[in-house]
């Protein structure tokens, strides 16, 4: 059911780490789709395969079985921050660059001049009201502040799909909610789809669509979600 608005589509897609006796099946036969404008929370216990699935959506991890495609995107999204923006579970800022430089980095890598990239970065930081953090180094930022700068980096690059892997994992609830608000704000500005993985039900509750994973299986979704078709259920 790929159409013009389907940013990511998986058909019985799975991912297995390693081979033979040590093989770990992280994602099993998942079929799903993310359409533009979607706001999805992905929850599930630790080790259930959330990160793996997000990495598959970002093209950073291949599907070892089944198929995936990014119909509405401009080709394969790996290394294309203007297509898919990702915020990692841990720290994803370069420690030797300050906030503005970190935000400008994907633009410069994409070929933009540093001056222009810096302006865009400041702009993105400003839109998320993070001006006071602009000149700080990652070491000098709190976990929540660092994640919000990572959001600014995604915003500056302007992707159509934003993936955030437990952006709130190491934060207290208030800080976590703040980061999620900033994420939603960024997605709204860009008109992008947003997928956020989280352990926290309070955070999941803020999303229209809620997907749940268990042992690599995308098990359940909130009832009014139309983006999800559970074809693994027999």
């Amino acid at each position: 059911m790929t159409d013009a608005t389907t940013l990511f589509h998986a058909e019985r897609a799975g991912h297995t780490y390693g081979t033979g006796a040590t093989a770990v099946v992280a994602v099993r036969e998942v079929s799903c789709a993310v359409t533009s404008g979607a706001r999805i929370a992905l929850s599930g216990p630790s080790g259930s395969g959330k990160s793996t699935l997000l990495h598959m959506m970002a093209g950073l991890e291949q599907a070892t079985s089944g198929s995936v495609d990014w119909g509405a995107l401009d080709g394969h999204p790996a290394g294309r921050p203007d297509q898919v923006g990702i915020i990692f579970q841990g720290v994803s800022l370069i420690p030797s660059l300050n906030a503005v430089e970190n935000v400008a980095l994907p633009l410069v890598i994409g070929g933009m001049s540093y001056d222009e990239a810096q302006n865009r970065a400041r702009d993105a930081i400003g839109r998320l009201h993070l001006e006071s953090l602009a000149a700080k180094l990652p070491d000098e930022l709190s976990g929540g502040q660092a994640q919000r700068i990572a959001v600014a980096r995604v915003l500056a690059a302007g992707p159509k799909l934003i993936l955030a892997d437990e952006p709130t994992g190491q934060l207290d609830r208030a800080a976590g909610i703040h980061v999620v608000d900033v994420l939603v704000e960024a997605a709204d500005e860009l008109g992008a789809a947003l997928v956020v993985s989280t352990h926290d039900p309070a955070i999941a509750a803020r999303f229209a669509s809620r997907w749940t994973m268990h042992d690599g299986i995308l098990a359940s979704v909130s009832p009014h979600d139309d983006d999800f078709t559970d074809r693994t259920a027999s």
Partner: protein
Amino acid sequence: MIRIWLRGLITRRPGPLLATVAGVMIAVALLASLGSFLASAQASMTTRAASGIAVDWQVQVSNGSSAAAVRRTVLAAPGVTAAVTVGYAQTTGLTASTQGTTQSTGSGVILGIPANYAATFPGQIRFLTGKRGGVLIAQQTASNLHVAPGDTVTIGLAGTRPLKFIIAGVVDLPQANSLFQTVGAPASAQPTAPPDNVLLIPIADFAKASAALSAVHPELIHTQIHVAHSHALPPDPSVSFVTVTEAAHNLEAKLAGAGRVGDNLGASLDAARGDSSYATVLFLFLGLPGAVLAGILTVAVANSGADRRRREQALLRTRGASPRLVARLVTAEAVIVGVVGGVLGLALSAAVGSIAFGSASFGASVGSAVLWPLGSFLVGLSIAVIAVIVPATRDFRSMIVSEARAQIGIRKQPIWMSFYLDYLLLAVAVVVLFITTQSGYSLVLAPEGVASIQVNYWAFFGPGLLWIGAGLLIWRIARFLLGHTPRLLTGFVRPVTGNLAPIAAASMSRQRSMLSRATVMFALALAFAGSTAIFNSTYQQQAEVDARLTNGADVTVSEPPGSSVTPAAASVISGVAGVKSVEPLQHRYAYVGSDLQDLFGVRAGSIAAATSLQDAYFQEGTAAQLMARLAAQPDAILVSAETVKDFQLHPGELIKLRLQNASTQKLVTVNFHYVGVANEFPTAPKDSFFIANSDYVTRMTGDASVGSFLVNTGGQSTNAVAAGLRHKLGTSATVVPITAARSSVGSSLTSVDLAGLTRVELAFALVLAAAAGGLVFALGLAERKRTFAIASVLGANRRQLRGLVLAEAAAIAVGGTVAGAGLGLILSQMLVAVLTGVFDPPPTILTIPVPYLLATIVIALGAITGAALLSARRSRRPPIETLRDI
């Protein structure tokens, strides 16, 4: 538990572990190899000192004592292998009539020797022509008397009738100085030159001749017992010296006044032990920085794994390991690294020793055979402890205060910077250098005959402080350039990073702590290689100059005194194969006031072609300038500094010398004009002498005779050319190749064979430079990995990633090479200045071994580029895995 942990270490992170082991290995091997150089150099010095002399002891029999009794006592002394009775008698002169003319000489000495003398003391007599037994005549005497084997010589004896002898052979007495020494007299009371006229006759004939003489002039006769001592001596020259001196004193005591011992062997060892101290000093100056550098590199590499170690320890702690267990694990790791590295290092040095010095032994004596390897091993162990345990305990502490945050290189500026330790150290280094290079200061003091030797260890502070101070200053400058000149840095990295340049520059400026430390290490490694290489080639060059100064040229042909050979004879010499050019050198004596000095007449325009004239030999101008002045003005003259002072001479002033006129044999006054000062000149004595134009001297004295010919062979096959010349010239002149001078210049370190040290040092320097290039990249590896992973998730392609890492490599390489080359030059200049005793006269300029230095730089830069590209390649592993690792 320890075994599991160690197995984990070896399988999980072999890189840092192996690098640490390798660092310890290199430090241990360097120290142990240099120790083995030292031991082998000392042993060879002892051997050379002992084998270089013909007669070990000359025991002078006191008047009225029985020579036979003295000989018995001598033979009974421990270590004595042979004792031979030799008679000495003064003659009033020798005469001979050949081919219708009669020649006579001044006073001389008649030696009575037993038939087995030449076999017992092979170094004493060199047979030139004729028989090897019977009456032998010294070559110079034969030349004075125009006699050959078969001719008859009459010796005059004071107060009794002369005696006639038929010459059986012509010989050379290479060690005439010690043969005719005044036994028991201090150096200052020794005759300035051995007698010109010497006849050696069988001891039986001598007994007859001396019987008549002793009746009227017993004071003209004396007897010596010539002694061969065992040369199985302790390898260390100082120890040997003490042993031999004590034995000589012992013998003298046993003789109880019946004889005095002239200790030639002791005197030779005395000179050698000074050289031995210089070898020790050189070892310290040249070798220690390398070992320290290897240590620093090792510690730095071990430190680069600190992040991972911190995580492992945290894991252990969370799994319930007690602090004591963690400490035990770390200690076990350090000990194993130290022991394995140490053993490998000793094995490597044994291999190096057998290749470079032909022996794998570590020491000259049993003591040093254990001490050197043990010492090196302990140093290696301490490096391992510092490298492994110190960062571990530091991490442990910081973990406890829970500040184990993600660290990046931007620590605060090092404390030493805020109180200007670098400037301070450099200032002190300059002061120490000033003091230790003052005239009158000597690095090694080995007073003749005194058992103890003083080495002035203060001199080490100069170069030592320079090393440290300069290292810190390079660090400061590198930090400054990285941190405070963003525009410059951006421009510098743009060629490799393109539009990422500002970001790369910003990132590098934040990592200036790590980058500047890497630059310092790279610079120090290059400086070590550079200074060692430059010092070594300068030394070798200077040794050559020294030998040439003593010998005159590659080969020197000396005419006997009074010969009338003219410069025209040069054509005979240049006809011999291998001769490139020949320069005649006049040798006369001139009175200045009542003072008699040597005068050398040169062809100023061409003398430099046959020998090396160093600027250091002269004052008031360079060698070239002074020779030009001589050439321009026929009556120009160079005099010694002492003469200038004594006569208050000013440039251009008239100086009147009295020289002998050839035809009248009378002294004539010749006017010269003083144009400069000569302190040294090839073949000239160490004290005062004159250098003038030979044409002018010939014109004023009517005498064109030449003292010697300086033969230039282009430095090649001097021995073969010398043999050719000897064949052509026969006994009419003495031919000495530079190789002979090289082995007889024994008073300075030039006699220490540096070849082994040079090879070992240069090899290690190269290894260190390459290792530094490769290893500095291990610093900051963890950060670099993370940066790469993030950048590649954000879309950086391989070229961009390579650019980022090459930018860092370029900064370290360029900064390190520039700083290292500069420091290397300054250090070698300083080494030359401090090791003044080694160089006499000091070299005018440093000799730069360009091929070696270029090779070193190329290899080091290759290593750093290789390491950079490798680390860029490694970063191609899926970035997501790296990110999960963090």
